[in-house]
């Protein structure tokens, strides 16, 4: 058994948690899928490697998983940050979930938010070189080319809402697209409907998106919605100076008003 499996086994044996949410083998040798380990002898199911991409923080909020009892979650860096942002937004409470950080040597269970904050303080931040390159490529396009790019991407959207479903930060029980008295977002998955849906989603995630990439990974039409979110994340960073999910703070961009705010409508 490797360290991750051993740690999971110990936590379950000590009854410190009721379930370990992790990655296991998927349909194909290259695929991984979420597994919910509840018995110590199932710990060898747990795998961690490059193919484990889904942001498992989603399951911490899923009612059926919550019902299993206290959870430990196998957490890549974006998952750790998601937990802190969810805490910032009062969606989870301190010590209600154990994080098992992977990908950085030893798997030392992080049992509270302070421990996650401390762990993240030593992890490199910001976008990867490839992400930066892709963002720069989009930004350097002329407006017309940029519009053409997004039109072609969004024309494939079938409004299946897999992006929303996979995103741990999209936790509203009734999403704005489902509000129909009045109807805010056009219903059909035509150009306008798809544009408004994806732009609204990106706006609602500005300053909250962790850039985990789960939304784009989930999209059956392979639309680069992650780029849209990253562009807004950059914007929110520049305007408000706040990077989400580095600490449990109460003043994130979308929920804070200041007397010194430039915009008139807020006053």
């Amino acid at each position, binding site marked *: 058994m490797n360290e991750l499996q051993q740690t999971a086994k110990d936590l379950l044996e000590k009854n410190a948690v009721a379930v370990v949410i992790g990655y296991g083998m998927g*349909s194909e040798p290259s695929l991984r899928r979420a597994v919910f380990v509840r018995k110590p002898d199932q710990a060898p199911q747990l795998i961690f490697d490059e193919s484990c991409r889904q942001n498992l923080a989603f399951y911490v909020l899923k009612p059926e998983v919550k019902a299993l009892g206290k959870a430990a979650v196998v957490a890549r860096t974006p998952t750790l940050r998601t937990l802190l942002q969810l805490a910032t937004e009062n969606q989870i409470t301190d010590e209600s979930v154990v994080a098992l950080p992977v990908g950085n040597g030893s798997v030392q269970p992080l049992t509270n938010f302070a421990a996650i904050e401390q762990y993240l303080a030593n992890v490199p931040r910001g976008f990867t070189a490839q992400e930066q390159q892709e963002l720069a490529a989009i930004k350097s396009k002329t407006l017309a080319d940029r519009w053409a790019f997004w039109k072609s991407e969004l024309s494939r959207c079938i409004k299946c809402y897999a992006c929303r479903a996979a995103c741990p930060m999209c936790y509203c029980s009734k999403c704005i697209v489902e509000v129909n008295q009045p109807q805010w977002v056009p219903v059909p998955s035509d150009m306008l409907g798809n544009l408004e849906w994806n732009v609204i989603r990106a706006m609602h995630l500005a300053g909250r998106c962790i850039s985990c990439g789960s939304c784009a990974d989930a999209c059956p039409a392979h639309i680069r919605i992650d780029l849209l979110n990253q562009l807004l994340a950059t914007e929110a960073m520049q305007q408000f100076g706040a990077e989400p999910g580095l600490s449990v703070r109460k003043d994130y961009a979308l929920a804070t008003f200041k007397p010194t705010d430039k915009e008139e409508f807020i006053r």
Partner: protein
Amino acid sequence: MNESKIILKKSLGEWFNMMTAGGYRVVGPVGQDGQIDFEPVTSPDAVRFDHVQTNNSGKWVMFPRYEAMMRFRLSGKEVQAGEIPPQAPPTVLFGAHPCDAASLATLNAVFTWDSSDAYFEPKLANTTIIGLSCTKGDSYCFCTSVGGGPGDTRGSDVLLTPLDGEKFLAEILTEKGKSVVGLAPQLFSAADGTSKEAALAKIPARFNHRDVTAKLPSLFPKEDVWKEQSLRCLGCGACAYVCPTCSCFDIQDERDRYTGVRIRCWDSCGFGLFTLHASNHNPRHKQSERWRQRVMHKFSYQPERLNVLGCVGCGRCSRSCPVDMNLGEHVAALAEIKV
């Protein structure tokens, strides 16, 4: 009727030209590896022949993503409403694999169940299916478990089977098939008796669908089974939207203060809001109940009530599922449970 001929690959262009000249819109699988979909095409050069399956199904030809049905306007206290008639251009759906061709029977059974759907029926009536047998499959394909197969003729009007890189066996199966072949009869020569079997993909059966249908009512109350399978399910619409047989829709009014359009759009039983009542009661409150509904609907309710399976084993739902919910695997697991 069932007549077999040979058409050369290099003659397909001519056939496409004749179909276009004959007033047909030709829709076929196009795109790059990873994203191949049914779209209007003018030449077979753009058409893919080498893929396992398209990402989205071709059901949009008969059942589009969204469809406007009525326009209305409020003037004073008067409401003026005007129907938007169905659009049903004569269409050839080219290169649909046998599972997709078989899916039309399921869609048709739903849309003609107790009344005939005015928007679906004319499109189906005006669509001709030129199917394409499968020479390869992947681990997600399970057509042979649900009564189909890589060379199955059901639902196709003409079925093409690639015999080698150069020529196709063309089985002409219906009057509609005869008509499209009749547009260019000179391109078809007599079959030389070569059997298509050797060319077909080998798709091992994973379960017996009759056993599954017989067993499902007794599995319904086993909550743990459904919960265990669906713990990782996100509750999105991807599986239903890519599925060739899923037919659920929602009708919504898109409106401003005085005018509006009534539209029907795809919907999915995977969504939590799908069955939410105005009272706030939800008969399928949990994702496990929604997953159970998906499986029961396809493998129990539809065979019982409509005499047709709700799944043709194309595997799209599983290939597209963001969390690797593998329908073939899960139904095979259900078939193994002792009741």
